[in-house]
């Protein structure tokens, strides 16, 4: 079989190497590949545009066959859509329910967003742990503050309305 098929990365790029059984058979028996056995059938990869292949996972559930990272990704998108809906919701039906939903959705969206920024720029075990702890404290305080504001003061929807009526 050709040399290019022996490297899993170029196999992915070619798209031709993994489509026939014989090549895959020889790929499996190659000892260099047994240490990193990733064989992807290109055709099936094309059918799953939603499958994010590489992204960071939160510190929990970091086992090698956990789909926690994938679920996290999906949850981030679902939350974004929910937050999009809360915008007009706040405008047309201001009130306690929207106030607390906004507090939760905004804080969580921000927490996860800042988490991605962290993952991109902070490297090294201790630095990541410190930064993650700091972020967790910040998000907790933010949520607490927003809930306190909703309970003891005018609430988020009214606050924006009052601010804008200047």
């Amino acid at each position, binding site marked *: 079989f050709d040399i290019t098929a022996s490297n899993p990365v170029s196999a992915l790029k070619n798209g031709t190497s993994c489509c026939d059984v014989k090549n895959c058979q020889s790929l499996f028996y190659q000892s260099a590949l047994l240490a990193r056995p990733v064989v992807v059938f290109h055709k099936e990869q094309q059918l799953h545009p939603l499958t994010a292949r590489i992204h960071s996972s939160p510190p929990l559930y970091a086992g090698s066959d956990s789909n926690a990272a994938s679920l996290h990704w999906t949850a981030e998108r679902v939350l974004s859509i929910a937050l999009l809906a809360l915008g007009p919701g706040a405008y047309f039906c201001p009130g306690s329910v929207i106030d607390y939903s906004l507090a939760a959705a905004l804080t969580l969206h921000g927490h996860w967003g800042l988490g991605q920024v962290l993952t991109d720029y902070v490297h090294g075990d201790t630095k990541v742990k410190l930064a993650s702890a700091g972020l967790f404290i910040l998000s907790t305080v933010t949520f607490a503050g*927003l809930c306190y504001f909703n309970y003891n003061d005018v609430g988020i929807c009214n606050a924006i309305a009052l601010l804008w009526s200047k």
Partner: protein
Amino acid sequence: MALLLRSVRLAAPMGTTAKEEMNKFWAKNSRLNRPMSPHITIYKWSIPMMMSITHRGTGVGLSGAISAFAMAALILPGNYTHYLDLIHSLSVGPFLIGLAKFGIAFPLSYHTYNGIRHLCWDIGKGFKIPEVYRTGYTVIGLSVITSLALILM
């Protein structure tokens, strides 16, 4: 052999996680004291690049503003209307008020519209380069228009 193939439908799992692989990458680089390749200092800036970092910047900025507001609510004495009246009494003038409103409205609009653009990418739509630029300009245009509309409300 057929059994092996049938049990490996998409991919055979690797022994390490993505996170472990990434940590190994960074640990090796710092251990060997490798310099970082020049990237933003030499690469020509493009609209998609600028929009991407702006999306991140507006996100971090908005998040920071929300956190600052929440902490102020917890720490500062007096209630919200008290502080609003305080700002009112400063009689800042319509232009500066408009500017301040733009400072809030634009990051929010931009991040929202570009966020929708991101969600379209997430369902696989709009990756062709002309589409990237077209949707990009649309986001910028809509952000400016929405911000102006919000200020005039």
